[in-house]
């Protein structure tokens, strides 16, 4: 529970009487403390990336919260959001920076630029350390790295070289896994970062272009899109891998798609996996022996991102990429659409800061 002190409660009542503009429940941690953040990439080189804030069911949404709180534009091509100690880290790839803001108020503390080169995703690994996947020059296969961020001073304090194209990360108590989708090229690796040894200890070879991962119990699930039809090296099938974390990262099961099938957006809710294939959503039990034959949900539009969390499946739609996109919430138990709201331009990464 959040503590609400009397003075605040009093001021809230006064404001409540004098102002009818906001109906969001505010706590002393700030109005953006508990909810779902949507990172809107913005149009390429139009400098209109933005941040939206919605509640768990997407029943209301507030757009441009970073701009409102700070009076400045977020930047170009905001890629992702991560959290550490009640601070939000918004990775803005095009502007080559990370904006660090107080989660509750979205007031900017500092901007990290030094030590970053094409930053992509942020993951906290300890109380005061986080890692950011960085591509370097996206056409250069040898300059990719993890930027080590001290989240107390909010500076890049180290640099861990990794294989080409590090993208998304997931972690459990012992390991952080880094999917190497391959930047502008292609790769088929998942790096294992040992959280105790603080170094990369393993490299797991998976299918082409690993694009999303989840962890369930002692298994790491990796969804690989495969090489697309236009790939210079030839089209390859999508694949889903189940990797045994406790057994030296051996592959426990492989699920093969057809050669022309390129799934994406793997996420998990309870023991149900969700992924997207050609704008159809599939649901799969973690104990299933084969891929599901029929879809769980057919989308009206096109998914730009998809993420399941605590009973809700969130799907963003960038529409034509030249207008404000949408975010929808579906009930994971019955595929019912709960709400749809208009977010910012090209809504992508979804960050959860929920109790």
């Amino acid at each position, binding site marked *: 529970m959040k503590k609400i002190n009397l003075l605040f409660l009093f001021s809230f009542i006064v404001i409540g009487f004098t102002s009818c503009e906001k109906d969001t429940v505010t706590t002393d941690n700030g109005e953006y403390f508990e909810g779902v953040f949507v990172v809107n990439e913005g149009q390429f080189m139009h400098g209109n990336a933005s941040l939206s804030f919605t509640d768990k069911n997407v029943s209301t949404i507030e757009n441009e919260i970073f701009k409102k709180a700070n009076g400045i534009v977020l930047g170009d091509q905001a890629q992702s959001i991560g959290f550490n100690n009640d601070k939000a880290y918004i990775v803005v790839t095009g502007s080559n920076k990370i904006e660090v803001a107080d989660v509750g108020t979205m007031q900017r503390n500092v901007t990290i630029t030094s030590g970053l080169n094409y930053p992509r995703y942020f993951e906290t690994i300890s109380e005061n350390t986080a890692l950011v996947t960085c591509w370097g020059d996206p056409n250069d296969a040898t300059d990719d790295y993890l930027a080590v961020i001290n989240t107390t001073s909010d500076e890049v304090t180290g640099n861990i070289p990794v294989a080409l194209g590090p993208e998304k990360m997931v972690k459990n108590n012992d390991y952080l896994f880094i999917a190497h989708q391959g930047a502008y090229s292609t790769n088929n690796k998942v790096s294992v970062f040992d959280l105790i040894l603080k170094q990369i200890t393993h490299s797991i070879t998976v299918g082409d272009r690993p694009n999303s991962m989840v962890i369930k119990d002692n298994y790491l699930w990796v969804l690989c899109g495969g090489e697309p039809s*236009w790939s210079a090296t030839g089209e390859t099938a999508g694949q889903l891998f189940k990797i045994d974390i406790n057994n030296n990262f051996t592959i426990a099961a492989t699920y093969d798609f057809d050669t022309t099938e*390129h799934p994406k957006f793997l996420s998990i809710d309870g023991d149900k996996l969700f992924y997207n294939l050609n704008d159809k959503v599939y649901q799969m039990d973690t104990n299933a022996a084969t891929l599901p034959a029929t879809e769980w949900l057919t989308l009206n539009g096109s998914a730009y991102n998809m993420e399941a969390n605590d009973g809700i499946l969130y799907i963003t739609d960038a529409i034509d990429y030249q207008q404000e996109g949408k975010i929808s919430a579906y009930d994971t138990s019955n595929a019912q659409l709960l709400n749809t709201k208009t977010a910012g331009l090209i809504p992508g990464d979804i960050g959860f800061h929920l109790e």
Partner: protein
Amino acid sequence: MNKFWIIFTLLIISLLPAFSQTGDKSYYVLDSVELTGLSSKPLLKAYHHFELPDSITGNLSLPRLLTQNTTIFVKEYGKAMLASISLRGTGASHTQIVWNGIPVNSILTGQTDLNTFSPAGFDRIILKKGGSSVSYGSGAIGGVVVFEDRIRFYKTFHLINQTKIGSFNTGLNNFKIVKANHKWYGKLNLQWQKSKNNYPYPGYQVSNENGAYQGLDYATTIGYHINNQHRIYFKSKLSYWNRETSRTLYMPQNAKLLTGNQRLLTGWLFQHRHLSAQTDLAYLYENFDYYPQKNNNAFSHSQSRIYLIKNLLTWSFDKSKKIMVGNEWQHQQATGDHINRHTRQNYAVFGIWSQQISHLTYQLKLRQDINSGQRLPVTGAVAASYKFNPHHSIRVNVSKNYRLPTFNDLYWTPGGNPDLKPEDSYGFEAGYDLQWNHSQLQLTAFYINSQNLIKWTPGNNGFWQPNNIEQAIYKGLELNTSKSFNINSKLNIENKTGIAYRQAVNLKNKKQLPFTPQLTGQNTLRIMINKFAVIYHYRYQGKIYTTTSNTKFLPAYHLHNVSLTYNYNRHFKFEIGINNLANAYYENVPTRPQPGRNYEFLINFKI
């Protein structure tokens, strides 16, 4: 309120000539034309023509020349960067750039990067609005911009050298020499320019960090008068550009773009009594090399070639009737890192009948294209003008036009769609022209309906694909006026105004298409006192939506440029210019500001 006053003021200024009857100097120089066939002065004035003043074209970029003198919108990605044209609200590939009768838009992109096409050295530049596919084929939907090198066999020699230095380490030199006699004509125009272009972004901490450029443009015209019936000619325009790609307000850049263009044309003209025949052979080559890291050797490449043969045959029955028939064959090929080698042939036959009956002149035009990869519609046009008296005339034209998919649209990897159809469009316009003692007023209303517009949209297979999915209607009003007052032999004042209002509506969502300003206005005031001339250019550009939902837009802006010229003697002329006098922040593409207040100094030497 602000916008109201702008329109009001421009209207008042533009209506002045209608009430005024002084002045004797026309700003328009439309004299007889030779050797350029289709792009020659039309028999009738059924279209809105605008001739760009040639005395200032030697040292200006094409985007600057167009935006200073017309109401056209130019989408420029920062100064000297990629720039595309939008006429009457149509897209960048809907206006054809015509070089000596040859359409030269890229077959890869369908457009011409205006900053790589130097307007220097030409004898005439005409903006012809309205559909012209019959004369110029694919892409002439919004209109054409015609560049002409003219050949005249008479004894002459002149040489002009212009040297310009400006803010942000900018330098330009343009050298032009013309020598001719009754047998030969020769012209050479050589332009070189270079700039650090590192202007600060007005009101921001960042500057145009990666915006340096260097360009070379070389153009020749050679004509030989064999006898009174036969003449041959050769024309060329070569240009090479090395440009970094400007950073935006929020996104640093480290790339560069190298572009090369070679345009060669040779032809033969036969004239005997009622018959004239013209054959042109042309070769057009372009290449783009994009370096994502300017200091790294890795780059992506694309190039295209066009071979063209064009024949025109004109029979003039008498002064009032004329028929022109022609054909054109084009072999196009393109290749690059994102396009496998592809070729296509286009063959066209066309005919134009023109007649004058008393005060009425009319023209009938018909064209059929046969393309190796596309089924193309018959295109045609009907145009007419009626002259009530020397002061008042009206004009009307209707035309059917088309645009072929580009090689990028068809074959880009990934996404290219070989099943694309051509875009088709029809246009209608009507106008009223007033001419009163060299004062002019032109009022035009237009309507364009385009179907099967090619638009790239994201597919669910992870890449973007073009499809014939958009329909749009473009409609609007244009008003142009010019006026000159010759107060006495030492004082002359000229004023020209243009206002255009247009709607470009996407029929699917009924919204204005992005990057089409609804309102633009422009005014040029030139005061000549003795050896001095003051020129004041004003441009207003209305707000421009940048999203298809019309939720985001670039604000309207006012731009003021002034210059002072001093004619020292018949050899030397000096000019000092201040651009963006008010130091306004303005941009045509989001987060890509144009320079704030900046200065230019020009020395013009002439023999």
